């Protein structure tokens, strides 16, 4: 295989007395969907926030295309091509779709020495990109607060894709979604992957992960339990690993099959 798009080695992250990550390594290749699984509090969100420059790792190294990089702010990571759709949505309800879409990377138009936002272009692109994702907005100045949860998620994904992200990180995008909305998100991931973008997908739902994942890494209490390729592992195995290797047979027996 080629060099990975991004490689994180032995990442540790401490919050005061809490050790959230204790040496986690993963790598993401172009066009691959890498699933990150694990229990509540395993450190998944903390890990991808480190990848996205929101947190700085206490120890550990990050390589992009083989070069070591350091992200001091979310901006650094965004500029390096890492786009993130957070669990807590990172959309601002009172602002318009356009303003949210371009937040942090507003397109500029020079008028003499001054630089203004190029709203005409911004609005046009927003409408187009949302259309492309299958969302028809009434108008680009509509407040994000008036969109449904699924639609908001799509704005966030569309934005990332548009900005030519090399890596798209999705933190539990499906947890609050209905069946149809979930299918849409999974299909979007599939589409994005086919463009050669590396996707990091976090989920609690083994089936969602298996539906789109190429590789699966399971985190447990801040450590990696291992990485497996698609086809190398069964749903049941993954599930057991996520639950910390505990025997769930009893429960499953009484409750009828994998949950």
């Amino acid at each position, binding site marked *: 295989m080629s060099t990975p798009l991004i490689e994180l080695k032995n990442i540790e992250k401490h919050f005061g007395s809490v050790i959230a990550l204790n040496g986690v390594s993963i790598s993401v290749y172009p066009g691959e969907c890498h699933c990150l699984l694990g229990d509540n509090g395993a450190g998944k969100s903390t890990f991808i926030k480190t990848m996205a420059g929101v947190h700085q790792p206490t120890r550990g190294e990050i390589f992009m295309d083989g070069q070591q990089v350091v992200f001091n702010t979310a901006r650094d990571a965004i500029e390096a091509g890492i786009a993130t759709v957070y669990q807590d949505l990172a959309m601002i309800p009172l602002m318009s779709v356009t303003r949210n879409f371009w937040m942090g990377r507003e397109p500029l138009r020079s008028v003499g020495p001054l630089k203004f936002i190029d709203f005409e272009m911004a609005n046009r692109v927003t409408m187009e990109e949302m259309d492309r994702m299958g969302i028809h907005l009434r108008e680009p100045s509509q*407040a994000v607060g008036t969109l449904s949860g699924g639609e908001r998620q*799509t704005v966030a994904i569309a934005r990332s894709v548009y900005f030519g992200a090399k890596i798209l990180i999705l933190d539990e995008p499906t947890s609050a979604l209905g069946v149809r909305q979930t299918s849409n998100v999974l*299909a979007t991931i599939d589409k994005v992957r086919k463009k050669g973008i590396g996707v990091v997908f976090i989920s609690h739902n083994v089936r969602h992960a298996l539906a789109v994942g190429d590789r699966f890494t399971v985190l447990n209490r801040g450590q990696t339990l291992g990485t497996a390729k698609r086809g190398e592992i069964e749903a049941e195995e993954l599930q057991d690993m996520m639950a910390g290797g505990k025997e769930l047979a009893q429960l499953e027996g009484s409750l009828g099959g994998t949950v």
Partner: protein
Amino acid sequence: MSEAETKAEPPQEEAHDERIREISPLRKALIRPELGSICGVILVFVFFFLIARDSGMFSPEGVINWTVVSAQFAIIAVGACLLMIAGEFDLSVGSMIGFSGIVIALLSVTYGLPMWVAIIAAFLIAMGIGWLNGFLVIRTGLPSFIVTLAFLYILRGLTIFLAILTTNKTIIGGVRDAAEGDWLASLFGGKILTGFFKWMGDNGWIQTFVAGNRAGDPVVDGIPMLIVWAVALIIFGHVLLTRTRFGNWIFASGGDAQAARYSGVPVNRVKILMFMFTAFCATVFATCQVMEFGSAAADRGLLKEFEAIISVVIGGALLTGGYGSVIGAALGALIFGVVQQGLFFAGVESSLFRVFLGVILLLAVILNTYIRRSITGER
């Protein structure tokens, strides 16, 4: 696999949900943050036109009178507005006005520095305090209400203390003489378009003085720099907020600081800069006042922080940040100024002024809330 269709369908249905009535285009065009204040301005003018028409309120001097008062409110309202949209607010504006004025007067009159040095020093000190306000809010995570309340007391105390310590008085006069011929001072004091008004006066289009040392001059002899500053700040604030990248960051920082941070917006920098801008506006206010009146006093600016906040809120901004308009705040300031001076023109018992103010504030905010809910679909 035909993804396009599969995905194109469901959201379309959501957008045209049969369970939701459409909003009429007219209503949609009307619902803007400024709507409440536009209605307010119209109402207020109609009201005073009816009750105070022949009191001189709409003569040239009358107009200049309430315009100047409104411009004063507007200068501090612009700062407060941007800060409020960025999600914070500043109760130390009033104390800052008194403080900056005393600093200018102390440096120029008491210590004899050139006026431009004094003015620049005052701006630097004030913006330094603005920075400190912002830094404390960001660093400690405390609500800005508390931090700036502390500075309300600290600055007022320091102002009185400094003035008494150095001059034994709480008022320092003689600033006008010290400012004579200073290049920077003339940007804050003085008037523009004096030639034009003189010409209008000579042609009898506006009244002229009949007695005294200025007999023959027009009663309105120019546009005070205060108004120029107000207009400039309003335009600057409005363009900054609605047209620039930084403006988008202001909205984002106030709307949801965490989300903005995740998207790469330098929220801390935005908030601190807005605290500094508020301090800048307060100092513009103070400098104009000191230059116009030639003296600084320790009690200047009392309760001005509330007046700034009221203007901004009447103008449709949200106290919790992320939503508002500079034009709205300016209209709020206009309403405030017109009502205040208009009640004098109308000869209303002056203690009732506050009652009116409170009632207008309540009505305006209730109207604004209704408008905002229509925009955002919030419940």
